[in-house]
């Protein structure tokens, strides 16, 4: 399991160091600094093994988070944990920056003590954590409150506390899609897929049981459980989804057996699901690059973008970026 967790600034100074296991010594802190942060060549893997000690790192702006271990840990779990740690910190004090970390180091230690025990990740849902790890010092809690906290932290629904009340019950749903396209220099589409996220903001009282459907039934194309579109409003085909993943509040076994997405949502904003489709993608734009080598040191690049949607629609905030490295390669 995770033997220790360190946070460094861009210079390699330690801001936070928490050791969970006896096999990790103070020298591990320096080993990472010397071999990764100050390495002459950019490190080419997020996992580094230095003297039989493995370091996992992620970078957020100019802050390095490193988890260290001497055992054969679940690597995917360590990275997921590091991301989660970033989420939790952001939820508590905003952007992850050197200043924010220094200002909140006591809080971070408290969090690290709570969400990692002996290197095993524990409940890391901010909703639950915020009920008992607060920046205002200790609140005097009644016995009922205490047992409510502990049952929530350890219970089946760790992401939501009981007794939430809103005068107005509201639920917002955003569907954010990003179209990814890979095109050959000849303009041929090599691969295209849409990865979508369904983000929910829930302000609901109590323990609301929610159900969510896409065109009533999600068609997982690969499993051949296709059903015709039942809404029939737009007359379109039902969506062919290649794969989807869900927030931990969704009952996966129910989804697997009945194809229904049912859940008790966390309070506030969260990402309910992600999905991926590759079929029938209508690209919003067509990009036509024209590259002409004018001379040995001169290059002319013309990029034409054509919209593929109706004139009544309007695209905003369009940004075109060009990877300058690409030109070097052309030389």
């Amino acid at each position, binding site marked *: 399991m995770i033997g220790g967790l360190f946070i460094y600034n861009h210079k390699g100074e330690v801001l936070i160091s928490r050791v969970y296991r006896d096999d990790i010594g103070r020298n591990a802190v320096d080993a990472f600094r010397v071999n990764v942060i100050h390495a002459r060549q950019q490190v080419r893997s997020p996992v580094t093994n230095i003297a039989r000690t493995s370091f996992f790192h992620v970078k957020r702006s100019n802050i390095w988070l490193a988890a260290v271990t001497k055992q054969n840990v679940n690597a995917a779990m360590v990275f997921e944990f590091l991301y989660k740690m970033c989420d939790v910190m952001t939820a508590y004090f905003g952007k992850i920056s050197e200043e924010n970390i220094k200002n909140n180091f006591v809080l971070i230690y408290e969090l690290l003590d709570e969400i990692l025990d002996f290197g095993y990740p524990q409940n890391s849902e901010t909703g639950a954590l915020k009920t008992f790890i607060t920046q205002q010092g200790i609140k005097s809690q009644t016995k009922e409150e205490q047992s409510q906290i502990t049952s929530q932290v350890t219970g089946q629904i760790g992401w939501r506390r009981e007794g939430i009340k809103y005068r107005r019950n509201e639920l917002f749903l955003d569907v954010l899609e990003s179209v990814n396209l890979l095109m050959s220099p000849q303009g041929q589409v090599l691969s295209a897929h849409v990865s979508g996220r369904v983000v929910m903001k829930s302000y609901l009282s109590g323990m609301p049981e929610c159900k969510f459907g896409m065109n009533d039934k999600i068609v997982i194309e690969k499993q051949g459980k296709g059903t015709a579109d039942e809404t029939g409003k737009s007359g379109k085909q039902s969506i062919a989804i290649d794969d989807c993943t869900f927030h931990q509040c969704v009952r*996966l076994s129910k989804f697997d057996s009945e194809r229904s997405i049912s859940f008790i949502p966390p309070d506030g904003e969260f990402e309910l699901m992600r999905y991926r489709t590759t079929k029938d993608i209508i690209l919003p734009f067509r990009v036509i690059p024209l590259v002409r080598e004018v001379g040995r040191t001169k290059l002319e690049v013309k990029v034409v973008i054509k919209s593929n949607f109706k004139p009544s629609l309007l695209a905003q905030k369009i940004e075109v970026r060009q990877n300058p490295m690409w030109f070097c390669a052309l030389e």
Partner: protein
Amino acid sequence: MTDSKYFTTTKKGEIFELKAELNSDKKEKKKEAVKKVIASMTVGKDVSALFPDVVNCMQTDNLELKKLVYLYLMNYAKSQPDMAIMAVNTFVKDCEDPNPLIRALAVRTMGCIRVDKITEYLCEPLRKCLKDEDPYVRKTAAVCVAKLHDINAQLVEDQGFLDTLKDLISDSNPMVVANAVAALSEIAESHPSSNLLDLNPQSINKLLTALNECTEWGQIFILDCLANYMPKDDREAQSICERVTPRLSHANSAVVLSAVKVLMKFMEMLSKDLDYYGTLLKKLAPPLVTLLSAEPELQYVALRNINLIVQKRPEILKHEMKVFFVKYNDPIYVKLEKLDIMIRLASQANIAQVLAELKEYATEVDVDFVRKAVRAIGRCAIKVEQSAERCVSTLLDLIQTKVNYVVQEAIVVIKDIFRKYPNKYESVIATLCENLDSLDEPEARAAMIWIVGEYAERIDNADELLESFLEGFHDESTQVQLQLLTAIVKLFLKKPTETQELVQQVLSLATQDSDNPDLRDRGYIYWRLLSTDPVAAKEVVLAEKPLISEETDLIEPTLLDELICYIGTLASVYHKPPTAFVEGSRGIVHKSLPPRTGSSESAESPDAAPSGAPPSEQAAVIPTQGDLLGDLLNLDLGPPVSGPPVATSSVQMGAVDLLGGGLDSLLRSDVGGSPAMGGPGFTAPSAVMPANLGPPPSGGLGDLFDLAGGVGALSGSHVAPKTVWLPAMKAKGLEISGTFSRQVGAISMDLLLTNKALQVMSDFAIQFNRNSFGLAPAAPLQIHAPLAPNQTVEISLPLNTVGSVMKMDPLNNLQVAVKNNIDVFYFSTLYPLHILFVEDGKMERQMFLATWKDIPNENEAQFQIKDCPLSADAVSSKLQGSNIFTVAKRNVEGQDMLYQSLKLTNGIWVLAELRIQPGSPSFTLSLKCRAPEVSQYVYQAYETILKN
């Protein structure tokens, strides 16, 4: 309030100041001081001198302050064990606190203080906390047991905490279950033998229920634990798989990967004919692809695992090539991994796209990536024959760019292409030679030299080219030196007249002026070869080389199987077993995939062998003669003795095939080799030198010794001492004892006939019943003189294997009828299988690899050979005497792995992998054969040969 100011206290005498502040009466000031102490501790300052003062602050109602003090304690208690005792009272008191959060905090912190005296006091509070009414305390206490075990394992066992921990697996709270599982798994890892986790269908059911309810992390603990379980049959495996598959839709990639691990492992047990098997394969692909939309670090972990999965089960992702195309903004580590997988998935169907992509990549900026892309083009050429032409022309285009590292990389792969398609693309040699001067990397230089030497007769100025390299001979790396030596010898053998001087020069450079033993030895060998017998030298040095296989960097099958059991973990990221990077006892437990259900019988240990087969040397007299009489006399009517019940129908089919008329087809399919190999000239004679003349420097040397070793094989295989087959009292005074032997390709049955009766015996004749391998007497039993009472005659009966075939049970059972002037007697005996191992049973390396891959895993059987204190080399030579040939020897993580092949008289190949742990007298033998029934008997043969 900003806490960052605590990081900037650098003045002198601050320890003294802090001391004063810590002892202040004001609570606020105290807290501030402790914060400063923690900040100093973080940046690495030694603040242990403040120990008593900080501990004094422990007694407080302020939870935040308490946590800070605890943090300090965890860091420094070890260096101040005596002082740490001061804290015990507070801990014990806190463990009784009405607030569950404080109880848990105390027990959690106490477990982190690694001081013996404190540990003693921890036991009682821990016992209470394990049974606490609050789940939060219980889940913390569960982990604490693992902490305590890490400090003092004996104490944990003595105090009975392990049992309490086991009980927690049935706890009502899912998080308690998950933590208990995590703790038990960790403890079990350091006690491989203890049956701590004791997984059984009931406890598995509990875990699967908890899986639906606990946190994402808990799900990971449970799935990782499930992966260690071995279901009892395919039905149980399937039902677990069904309950695990929903996890593939979890947002947490680690949950997904752990679920994939369980499925990949249990899938081994499912029959491929099952509908469910196909469904499962289909269900695995989408989540694996989705992992590639995760953050780059996770993508990296996922790609390293997909690399393993693609090698184990290529069918899962064969249609998903496009998702592995690199994006311009992928981090370099993701790009490199994607490239690897692209090559693995390349096939005739998608090669055009792949090649177009690779060509693009070769113009990228990152040097490593470009190199890998160029190399990938070469690998495509080797893998997909149809694309070879286009790959070569792409490589030539790239050489024209004159970018130094691109040219060098291209030359290295072109050498491999020559090895795969000899005499096809030699027209490009001229272009290659133009770039001779720009080569500065040893690998590229060596490759170029190899090409020049190999095609010396077609390159007019080959001698000049090689001579130019020779000038700086001593500055070259060993790789280049060895290659240069071989190339010049080749050149000499092809154009002896003009190059005599050159070859003498290089031989003297290699033998006299070099300190490198490899180089010197190779030089001497060439020298002697050339001086004693130039014709032989030509045959050896210019021998036809075996073709290289397409997959050059496959992970060795056993390692791959082991790594599949570690999906998601560091081992799968490093592609190394945990023993390679984990210190101490942890992770030493060797994991392996469950055996296929079909072969479960042969995989059992010999003691539990079905039908209780008697040891092979012991003869069994058949009591009921009547039944057998029919068998022997009406050779065609005898119903086959029913074999041991075989689990799946496919295996049953194979059995019939093997022993019925299907022999021919078996033979043919073996000689034809695996379809993956293909290509012309594949059925190279086995006399061809098996190794390569390519870069690996020791190749040539090993070959020569190999040839020498082959001679020893003629001495004949192991012969067991004679045993009594037919006791005198059962055969009216005739006692027959005997054994089987094989000498220089001839099998014989060595018999000792003793007349213990009072009358003279004469008119001997012998006949065999039909048997599994068609053993039959090659000549009549020749006993010329009558056998007088108390006289013994020794006779060797030559046997052949062209008799009628019928499957026997056991497979090596031989029923014999002996007739004399008195009566006909019947007995049966078991012959050791190694008499059937033929002399040309040595398989070529490449073919071995291909065949091993080609034989389905369910045909693999594993055995243990115990108490055999031989070294790998001794084993190898001993087995070679009985026609079990070592194809390759490798050392993997300190273990010697012998890859061996043998062929039976009926053309069945058996491939073996023998794992030898130095210092341990037990070997692990894995056998793979298209006819898995023979494995059991091959194993017995191994056992017999090695122990005699």
